[in-house]
């Protein structure tokens, strides 16, 4: 502008760095605890160390988000999931860079992870308007009754994402729940949280209703018992092998609990993650009876 840029002595432009915050109720708050931690995979980056109170706030937000999200038609939910895929695609490079920054994996592998996430999103986008065709039924009974069974979302589901792949693993758990009409509170990868937290930005620009997706970062060991014992969380979908302590705490409110014991490679295996039995435990089958008479 004034020729200063031409001056060789001008120092390089300091870039504007992103603060990675939580995503709760459609907003990006810092943790109420004021704590942060440096994730194992991301030297020099501080992210929120979410607290029990953050989780409780997120569940309140999710309960509100559930009302909106579950009240949409399947067609509308499908369109929004497709919009998520569009937004992921356009942010592919940025997300890949965030995966690279956190995971120290190669650029190509990171791009492949984002692409697999986009593809998975497209697959699930086609599910919400077919849930009842696939999981519901009209039932033949021994009498003059019209009887049919529909599926409805279980409610607010807690998710604990795998350490890696940090973005694809998170999406593999969250997407079936959203397709089923549930609201989600997810704890992103503890050691590699950047891409998972950036997914909040994707949600915020994709017409996902506020509260339908909530993302926390923090220590798995600190927060997973809180997920398990929170009485307004209706179900848990957790990456890893079955965990007795989580299951015991969850029993007090008869939560639906599933574990996804997948290896790193499994998460990009369509045969493992594009499955109706990832949504089945988190929808409730409701059977309606009515007499047939005149």
């Amino acid at each position: 502008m004034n020729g200063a840029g031409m001056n060789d002595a001008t120092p390089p432009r300091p870039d504007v760095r992103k603060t990675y915050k939580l995503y709760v109720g459609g907003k990006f708050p810092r943790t109420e605890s004021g704590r942060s931690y440096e994730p194992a995979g991301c030297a020099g980056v501080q992210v929120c160390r979410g607290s029990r109170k953050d989780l409780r706030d997120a569940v309140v937000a999710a309960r509100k988000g559930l009302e909106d999200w579950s009240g949409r038609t399947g067609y509308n939910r499908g369109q929004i999931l497709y919009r998520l895929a569009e937004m992921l695609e356009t942010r592919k490079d940025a997300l890949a860079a965030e995966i690279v920054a956190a995971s120290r994996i190669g650029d190509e592998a990171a791009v492949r992870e984002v692409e697999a996430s986009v593809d998975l999103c497209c697959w699930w986008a086609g599910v919400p308007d077919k849930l009842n065709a696939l999981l519901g039924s009209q039932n033949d009974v021994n009498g003059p009754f019209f009887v049919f069974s529909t599926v409805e979302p279980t409610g607010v589901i807690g998710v604990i994402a795998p350490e890696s792949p940090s973005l694809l693993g998170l999406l593999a758990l969250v997407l079936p729940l959203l397709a089923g009409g549930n609201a989600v509170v997810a704890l992103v990868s503890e050691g590699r949280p950047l891409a998972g937290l950036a997914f909040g930005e994707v949600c915020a620009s994709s017409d996902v209703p506020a509260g339908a997706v909530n993302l926390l970062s923090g220590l798995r060991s600190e927060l997973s018992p809180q997920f398990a014992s929170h009485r307004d969380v209706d179900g848990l979908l957790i990456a890893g092998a079955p965990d007795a302590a989580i299951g015991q705490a969850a029993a007090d409110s008869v939560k639906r609990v599933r574990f996804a014991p997948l290896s790193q490679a499994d998460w990009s295996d369509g045969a493992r993650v594009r499955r109706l039995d990832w949504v089945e435990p988190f929808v409730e089958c409701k059977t309606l009876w009515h007499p047939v008479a005149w």
Partner: protein
Amino acid sequence: MTQHREREKSTAPPRPALSFGQKWRYAPAPEATDFVAIAPRHELFIAGDWSAPRSGRYFPTIEPATETPLSEVALGDEHDVDRAVAAARAALPAWSALPAEHRARYLYRIARVLLERAREFAVLETRDGGKPIRESRDVDVPLAAQHFFHHAGWADKLELAFAGRAVQPVGVVGQVIPWNFPLLMAAWKLAPALACGNTVVLKPAETTPLTALRLCEIFRDAELPPGVVNVVTGDGSTGAALVRHLGVDKVAFTGSTAVGKSIQTALAGSGKGLTLELGGKAAHVVFEDAAIDGAVEGVVRGIFFNQGHVCCAGSRLLVQEPIAELFVEKLRHRIERIRVGDPLDKNTDLGAINSKEQLARITALVTRGVDEGGTLVQSSCALPNKGFWFPPSFFTGVSQTDSVVREEIFGPVLTIQTFRTPDEAVEKANNTSYGLSAGIWTDKGARILWMAARLKAGVVWNNTFNRFDPGAPFGGFKESGFGREGGRQGLAAYAKCTGGLVQG
């Protein structure tokens, strides 16, 4: 507002009560029992044969209508459970490898013979459990047979039920069933498990073991391979030993929410399958436009069927204000005409309470309801001197926080509340930790669908109540449990999809 309306009503001439005088007395119509012999002692059924419990201990099972002992039954302990699980494990490879069509054939045989012996099972069920013969004859036994027949047809069509997914049996299944529908619950649990190629250890309820044991005679006659079904009788400790046994791959439980939670806790982290069908406190919502006499009959059927010993009983009536007074009056007259007494009499509507313990529980809760300020209305019917009895009852003047409104009574006791708007009805109906069933009575189709979509319950009966069918999935939302029984959805509880999620 309400008081004002009541004043208006009180100026109207009193509605005459229905009276049939003395001309409509029912003559006794007892079902014959002489053709149903009951052995003085029952052993455990393990590996296709009867065997004594290792402890040598037995406990009596009595007829709740007369308090007379019917037989004594083996008290299985952990050693017996261990033997039964071993027998089921030994039978698993051959049974699961059997051509599916052959598995189906055994289930068809069981269904057919059960119908052949239907009256015998109905009499036995009524004597052991106290339910009216009309119900065991017309509901329990035919439905039990239908469950075997229905699932027989699934056995060789599993690849159609789980399109696109490879399924295999879960393995050895431990099943614990309650005392309210002893034979029917055995059928609900056994039929889908066997159809999917599993082997089973079944633990019947302590107070009602006889029909499940007699079912074993049918298994033998049907030449069901030994060990495919094993029955271990006993008390709560027997059931606890079964669900905690390391050799069991999956547990299916029907019973109280408290016990269900303890089982879920015990199985946490094991990766074993679990389905729970637990308690309920169903709302029965009656709108002002409902066909009122039909609704009265539905509400009566909803709460007094099987003495109210029904997890999905319509135990909370929510009636819209404009018709509340009329509805309560009609109910008051109607319960006077419920025939309470000898369960073996074919005219009996309400039989005996299943056990002394259950009667004490009902009495205690009803006493609490009165203490908390509820108005108790009971039939003036005479109750037999011997046996366990409770008259048809309902509470008015109760609110959402009262014990009788919140807790499952599991007896012939209804609570009545009112509402003004559909939103209020939904709010009140869902204000419970349970979510098993609900009822809606209205003439408006659109309102039924609007209400049904909002009620958090696994089964919603509209202008009807307490209907069951093996083709119709049944099971709860929230703390009423998870998993479904019946229909295509019910098969998922007994088939393992390779590569799927793991339950915890």
